[in-house]
């Protein structure tokens, strides 16, 4: 006699309107088609900008999905109630991760174009790269990436399935199972995100190394994930979905998280910069030198102000976090800054001057619309919120003091 006796207080329609869904699908499909067409044109014209643009777009969208996976595990581990009504959206964003294994393939084919260490003639002339060859080689790179995708995909699917099972009646076992899976999941997420950051981003400058780099990328990823969840929920709200289930109280908390993670990102990014600046060892400063030369300097300045000071000031007041228009603006801005940051991390290796190219935009649209299409498609298969979760009522009742 578990769940049958408890009545779930239905406030919203937890199913998406079929017409709305079709309209969304068509728009996303159109965007994806357009994006891929332009991208294919760029590829076939032999543009050198193709692979970097693609890598950037891929990492950008994947870090958002990983941030959502982080959100899901964090809520299960801490036993939070406030976030329950928002959790299905996060779970569904994370669920697109298995698709990224396929979208990663172009990068595998483009290794020599992207990474110095994958060019035999460069390695032959560089003793340091030879010393690193046991790690930085195409086969190892691909295998490690595969392991990462396997782990992320597995946890995204397991946690999603577990959550969906609750829809027909939550039980303590399911709540416990979610927490049990999340504990090792969090450890693996930390290890794999670090590893992926080293492999995919840090090894773009194969001589450079920084121990905090994995946490640096992770902090940005978490922030972007939380911002994406906030923004999707706000978009749903406009479309008339989850209006009562995710209300100002929940947005207030999401806003607090955006604020906290903004500060955490700044803390990590500043620590890394400060220690390298202070140490002033050429092999370490080279990375920042490359990224503060010419027009890249302005991008670096934009990050300092745009990624830290602006959201910090905007999200500080309580009223701002409860003003949904302001919150939506802040979340969108944070997502934009995540792109700017990854642009600044990746592109200086390939371009001497900062500047957006048409192929960058096409890649972001193509990869993003593909992920979004998967998200949209997965969204319709189950309720928009984990209605059977034992903490669901508590989440609905939640208020900030």
């Amino acid at each position, binding site marked *: *006699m578990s769940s049958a006796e408890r009545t779930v207080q239905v406030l919203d329609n937890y199913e998406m309107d079929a017409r709305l869904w079709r309209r969304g699908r068509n728009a996303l499909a159109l965007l994806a088609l357009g994006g891929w067409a332009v991208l294919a044109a760029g590829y076939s014209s032999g543009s050198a900008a193709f692979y970097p643009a693609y890598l950037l777009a891929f990492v950008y969208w994947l870090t958002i999905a990983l941030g959502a996976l982080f959100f899901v595990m964090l809520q299960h581990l801490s036993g939070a109630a406030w976030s329950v009504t928002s959790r299905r959206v996060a779970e569904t964003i994370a669920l697109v991760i298995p698709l990224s294994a396929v979208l990663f393939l172009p990068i595998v084919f483009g290794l020599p174009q992207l990474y110095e260490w994958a060019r035999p003639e460069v390695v032959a002339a560089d003793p340091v790269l030879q010393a690193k060859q046991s790690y930085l080689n195409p086969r190892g790179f691909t295998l490690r990436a595969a392991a990462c995708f396997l782990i992320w995909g597995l946890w995204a699917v397991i946690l999603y399935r577990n959550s969906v099972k609750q829809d027909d009646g939550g039980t*303590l076992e399911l709540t416990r199972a979610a927490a049990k899976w999340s504990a090792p999941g969090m*450890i693996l997420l930390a290890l794999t995100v*670090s590893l992926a950051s080293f492999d995919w981003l840090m090894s773009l400058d194969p001589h450079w190394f920084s*121990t*905090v780099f994995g946490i640096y990328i992770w902090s940005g990823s978490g922030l972007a994930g939380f911002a994406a969840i906030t923004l999707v929920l706000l978009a749903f709200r406009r479309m008339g979905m989850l209006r009562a289930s995710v209300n100002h109280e929940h947005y207030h908390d999401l806003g607090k998280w955006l604020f906290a993670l903004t500060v955490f990102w700044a803390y990590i990014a500043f620590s890394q910069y*400060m*220690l390298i600046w202070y*140490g002033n060892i050429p092999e370490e400063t080279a990375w920042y030198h490359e990224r503060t030369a010419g027009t890249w300097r302005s991008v670096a300045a934009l990050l300092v102000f745009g990624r830290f000071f602006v959201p910090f000031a905007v999200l500080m007041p309580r009223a701002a976090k409860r003003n949904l228009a302001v919150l939506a603006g802040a979340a969108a801005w944070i997502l934009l800054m995540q792109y700017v940051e990854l642009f600044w991390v990746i592109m200086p290796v390939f371009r001497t001057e900062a500047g957006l190219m048409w192929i960058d935009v096409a890649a972001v649209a193509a990869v993003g619309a593909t992920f979004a299409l998967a998200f949209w498609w997965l969204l319709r298969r189950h309720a928009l919120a984990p209605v059977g979760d034992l903490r669901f009522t508590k989440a609905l009742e939640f208020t900030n003091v």
Partner: protein
Amino acid sequence: MADLAITRELDAPLVVGEPSYSDVTESVSRIVENKMPRAWYIAFGVTATLTGVLLAMLAYLVTTGIGVWGNNQPVGWAFEITDFVFWIGIGHAGTLISAILLLLRQRWRTSINRFAEAMTLFAVACAAIFPAVHVGRPWRAYWLFPVPNEYLGIWQNFRSPLMWDVFAVSTYATVSALFWYTGLIPDLATLRNRAKTKARRIIFGILSLGWRGSARHWRHYEMAYLLLAGLSTPLVLSVHTIVSFDFAVSLIPGWHSTIFPPYFVAGAIFSGFAMVVTLMVIARQVFHLEHLVTMKHLENMNKVMLGTGLIVGFAYLTEFFIAWYSGNPYERFTFINRALGPYWWAFWIMVSCNVLVPQLFWFKRIRTSIPAMFVISILVNVGMWFERFVIIVVSLSRDFLPSSWGHFRPTYVDILTLTGSFGLFLTLFLLFVRFLPMISMSEVKSTLPRPAAARGGER
């Protein structure tokens, strides 16, 4: 009935036995109003003696010189800096519990925050001794502050993290003390109201700053508390971050590492919680507070230890990996030397105590076993002391030039000063337990379920 089981699991009451408001007041206040148990006097005798040892060692040091320690070239920083970082770290549980857990609405913090915050203050007091005497001429320790000194025109180096440390630690001590005191005010008023002697009434009357518990008072109090929590939150990160800068801004392999700031912070919280568990396990038993500091509280603290211990393990792993990945021969050597060099034992004590042993907390049976957590929490603090020793001493003993390598050996003064600092910490702690309510009565009451509260009277 299933519903009841679910509620019990998801919304377990934070205290057991459904105490009323007056039960809480009674269980906490009677400790400071009655005579201490015999064990307290014995413990106080021991710790006061150890404090005497500390004072004797410091007197010997100041009158003789830094040479009484084992420090020498190339290991110019050894025990005293290790002890400094160790003690600063211990304090972090208090700040985390009082600030971050408050903001995260972790209401279980109410039974342990007072206790942990007091430990923060005493740990900072212990920590501050070491850099002050390490300057060699402690009567000139005020030169650390940017105030006019005998040699006008000599300014402190504002680009030095040692200077930032002075600001970070003094801010930390100030804000922690304010936070602690603000939290104490309602409880001090309770003690004033219960006072049976005139002296107590006057002392607690002054200390409670005229608190009458009116709605207005509470409103201001809650706001002040929240603001202090907001102010303290960056301090949880900043203090140990700046301590880590002391090392990381240098060029010594094993010190110069960008992961140091978050890694040091996690380690500090790890060791702080371990210390809280060690002392709480004893205190709740001796003073019969098992219903207020329940197994749930201890289990939660053990979970925090497991989590932060894993972060520390993650940092060890990353450092080793990057040392290898860097291809830099000095980096690689440093880490091989750590694990297999002359101080291999220190490294393996650190790894076993900080990474391996806490894994036992994955098992609920161990997480909820008092003897197990007591032993593990002590081992964690042993491991965390050795972590700082490994970072500081081992890295300095062998750097770039083999011709300038050396081996550090502590003198008895080093060892007795460390031992004595435990004496000071525990003495202050015992005094706290003797004179002030070690559990925040007013905050625990706020977590009581309504019906039980209605049954008892408010005092």
